[in-house]
């Protein structure tokens, strides 16, 4: 009886006895993510479940991510299979209006320039010692696109999924702080004051319907490994534009996206186990992610300057900063910066075109990367 009592009491305190400093640090990091999401309003839909998942998985003996564990079940079903990020893309496609891009298609090139941070960061990641596929996973933070970052890192470097996802979503939320100093440093006051004409090109419904179909077929043939990414975002957009499947469109942008966002966030948080997250490698991932997103802005603005030069000063280089996937946040940053120097300057629609280009650009960049990796024999 006495030994049973002792064993029982020991069992009661087993969690406390197993609690280490590393668990406390991770619980504090999870709490910080909750604070950023709840109090500061930084990407709350992702940071709240990620923060809570990080807390749950770091409670000693909770076995959340052990075989058969509560979160492990969803991780195996949705993250390991890459289904969750793809379902999120379905919702993004259903929510995105590509009309500004269809009105002014040459601006899509800024969406390509805004991805160059990925490729420069790849070289930096290799230089600091990451192996090939880890470097690919780290560099994809430069897509400035959460689902793409999750898709690629869960495919090639699942051990970095937590760090990559936290970096991608945190820096996306910090775009209004990261971009303006770079935009100011790389442009002259005269360039920032350029007023762009209004582009009013009416677009037919048939064009809007054909666009996602043509993008899917063309881009998937060129980069077949990226077909799931391109296909889901474009299928979502087709549902939005065709007007024939309104219930499916609403389900994609609401119920499916909400449920998947919740489970995906918890799963990402649950990859932040102390022994995997508290490493020098994580700090490097965070630093390289910051560099990647900064470089996207640098190259985007420089490309905007080039377009400005080639068009005889008709394009305001600031819109180059919106060639990333953080939609519509970076377009709003461009509008605010433009108005700061010229109150009559309304860059929003032009920046939205670049931003929509950035959304397609990030998916295409990932698709091209996957196909090149396959071509090089690095992945099967």
């Amino acid at each position, binding site marked *: 009886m006495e030994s049973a009592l002792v064993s029982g009491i020991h069992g009661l305190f087993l969690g406390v006895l197993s609690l280490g400093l590393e668990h406390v640090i991770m619980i504090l990091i999870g709490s910080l993510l909750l604070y950023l999401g709840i109090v500061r309003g930084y990407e709350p839909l992702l940071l709240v479940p990620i923060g809570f998942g990080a807390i749950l998985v770091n409670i000693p003996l909770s076995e959340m991510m052990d075989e058969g564990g509560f979160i492990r079940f969803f991780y195996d079903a949705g993250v390991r299979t890459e289904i969750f990020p793809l379902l999120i893309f379905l919702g993004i496609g259903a929510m995105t209006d590509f009309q500004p*891009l*269809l009105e002014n*298609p*040459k601006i*899509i*090139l800024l*969406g*390509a*320039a805004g*991805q*160059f941070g*990925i*490729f*420069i960061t*790849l*070289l930096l990641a*290799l230089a600091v010692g990451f*192996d*090939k596929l880890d*470097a*690919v996973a780290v560099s994809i933070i430069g897509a400035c696109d959460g689902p793409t970052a999750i898709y690629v890192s869960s495919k090639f470097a699942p051990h970095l999924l937590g760090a990559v996802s936290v970096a991608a979503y945190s820096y996306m939320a910090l775009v209004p702080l990261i971009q303006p100093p770079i935009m100011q440093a790389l442009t002259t006051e005269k360039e920032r004051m350029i007023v762009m004409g209004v582009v009013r*090109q*009416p*677009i*037919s419904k*048939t*064009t809007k319907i*054909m*666009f996602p179909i*043509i*993008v899917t077929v*063309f*881009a998937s043939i*060129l*980069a077949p490994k990226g077909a799931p990414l391109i296909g889901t975002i474009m299928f979502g957009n087709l549902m939005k534009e065709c007007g024939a499947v309104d219930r499916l469109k609403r389900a994609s942008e609401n119920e499916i996206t909400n449920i998947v966002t919740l489970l995906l966030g918890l799963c990402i948080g649950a990859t932040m186990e102390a022994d995997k997250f508290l490493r020098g490698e994580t700090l490097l991932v965070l630093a390289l992610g910051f560099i990647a997103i900064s470089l996207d802005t640098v190259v985007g603005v420089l490309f905007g300057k080039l377009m400005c030069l080639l068009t005889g000063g008709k394009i305001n280089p600031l819109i180059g900063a919106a060639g990333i996937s953080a939609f519509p946040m970076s377009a709003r940053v461009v509008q605010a910066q433009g108005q700061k120097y010229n109150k009559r300057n309304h860059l929003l629609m032009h920046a939205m075109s670049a931003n929509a*280009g950035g959304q*397609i*650009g990030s998916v*295409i*960049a990932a698709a*091209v*990367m996957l196909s*090149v*990796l396959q071509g*090089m024999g*690095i992945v099967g």
Partner: protein
Amino acid sequence: MDNWTFGWTLALIGAGGTMLVLWILSLLILLIRKVFPYQPDASAEKKG
């Protein structure tokens, strides 16, 4: 393949390929806009 060959190859083909694909997409958008031009709603015109 060493890391540098891998990195430079992926960076150059990746960046170039992304730019090329998006440039062709911009041309395709112009093409579908020409093939399916905007036409004001005929029924609305009749009512007007």
